[in-house]
């Protein structure tokens, strides 16, 4: 009565006028996704990965194509890890299968593309590839050094045996 409700309403709008706004300016600002959000591209931590290919085996749709190369010491390394985004049903089984916690989602939901070729996502980055080569070289060098040592040892044994 006597405009009391009107004043209450004006109080409400006054508070909202100065209060925090709900709008996000979408392309510039993005809402942070929740902890368990599944979506976007997979991210591979190339230092944690042991190339066991459990993720690929866990995938119900065969959406993960791996190229695993053994190094000179017979240890397996990931050279290429292709995530076929079009086949993926975002079941999260690959991430759960990973014992080393090397797989995760990048939580980027804006991944639509023009061509189907763009839907093959290579997870091994340039950095990861460099790491791969570095590890391969190192293993090769170590294997060669070991072979050399073994050869020398064998030689010594041979000559020692002769003596």
């Amino acid at each position: 009565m006597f405009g009391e409700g009107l004043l209450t309403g004006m109080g409400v709008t006054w508070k909202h006028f100065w209060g925090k706004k709900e709008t996000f300016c979408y392309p510039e600002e993005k809402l942070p996704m929740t902890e368990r959000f599944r979506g976007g591209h997979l991210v591979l931590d190339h230092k944690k990965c042991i190339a066991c290919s459990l993720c690929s085996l866990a995938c119900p749709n065969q959406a993960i194509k791996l190229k695993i190369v053994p190094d000179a010491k017979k240890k397996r390394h990931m050279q290429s890890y292709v995530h076929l985004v079009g086949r993926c049903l975002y079941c999260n089984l690959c991430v759960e299968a990973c014992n080393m916690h090397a797989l995760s989602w990048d939580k980027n939901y804006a991944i639509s593309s023009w061509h189907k070729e763009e839907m093959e996502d290579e997870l091994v980055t340039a950095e990861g590839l460099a790491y791969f080569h570095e590890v391969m070289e190192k293993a090769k060098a170590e294997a060669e050094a070991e072979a050399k040592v073994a050869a020398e040892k064998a030689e010594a044994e041979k000559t020692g045996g002769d003596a």
Partner: protein
Amino acid sequence: MDILNMMMGQGVVSTLADQLHNLFMLLFDNAVVAGFLMKCVGIGAILGIISVAAIVFTYGERKVCAFMQVRIGPNRVGGRFGLLQPIADMLKLMSKEDIIPQGCDRVVWALGPMLLFVPTALIYAFFPFDNGVALADVNVGIFLMLAISSQAVLPFLISGYASNSKYAFIGGMRTVAQMLSYEAPMVFSLLGVVMLSGSMRMSDIVNAQSEQLWFILMQPIAFVVFVISATAETNRVPFDLVEGEAEIVAGPFAEYSGMRWALFFLAEYANLLSVSILTTVFFLGGWNGPFLPGVVWFGLKVLAMVFVFMWFRWTFPRTRIDQMLAFSWKILLPLALVNVLFTGVGIYARQWM
């Protein structure tokens, strides 16, 4: 020191006007020609104020509306704050097709929006923007202002009638009912102000407020009645029955498009500005205020009043036509009359003190 004198003594605008007048005298050496040119400059300035106000208020209205609805409003055109939004709106309106409805009374129909702008712009002549800055500071200022502004009813009615549309016609009829009903309490609420200041000249009313208190403190009831009836006079929410979108599409504007519609829009914002100016002049002490020049004080008060009217608009729901008319005749008018009575008694009592 010169600048300080200018700001304290005569006011920025009138000093500027004096210098311009001197320049015209030098150029033409003829008082009549110089006076005529000065009037032209004044008219140009007022039209400039109206158009700038329309641009600023469209932006302001969008922002105020958005903020009150927990949004952020225009944020794309012209940078992060959407500063060029009114320009985009204007370009959109100008590039629209001019649709003339079938079977309308074409001459009257085209005349409507133009005629509406005339009384709206005309009353700006009487407004004192600063000490001594008014295009025509006549001694019956309030009377003339009310007489002219009440002419704004007719263009609404004729554009509603000439559109040959039932919604437009209902809108036009509603305008007449609404604007005539709210004219009465508005006039009677101003009567208290006139009684206190003893003059109908607008600059005298402002001066009376610098001698006495501001009239918002001496005439609070009149202030409330005036603000409510001013909202109704400008056809803004909660009294926007003229263009009640949910009921009658857009009332008299329904059949107009493009620039013709933009003229209605312009008149609406010019009305909003003039009503805010009137509130400032009659109740908020006009250009009076410490430290800052008069024009700045005047502008600040006017903008505050514009914000209040926008605040009303985005807070209240629309009233029903019968509720609105009943409110005018049964509540506002008696209140205004009682206010006149008490003001009279007060003035009489003060003579004997």
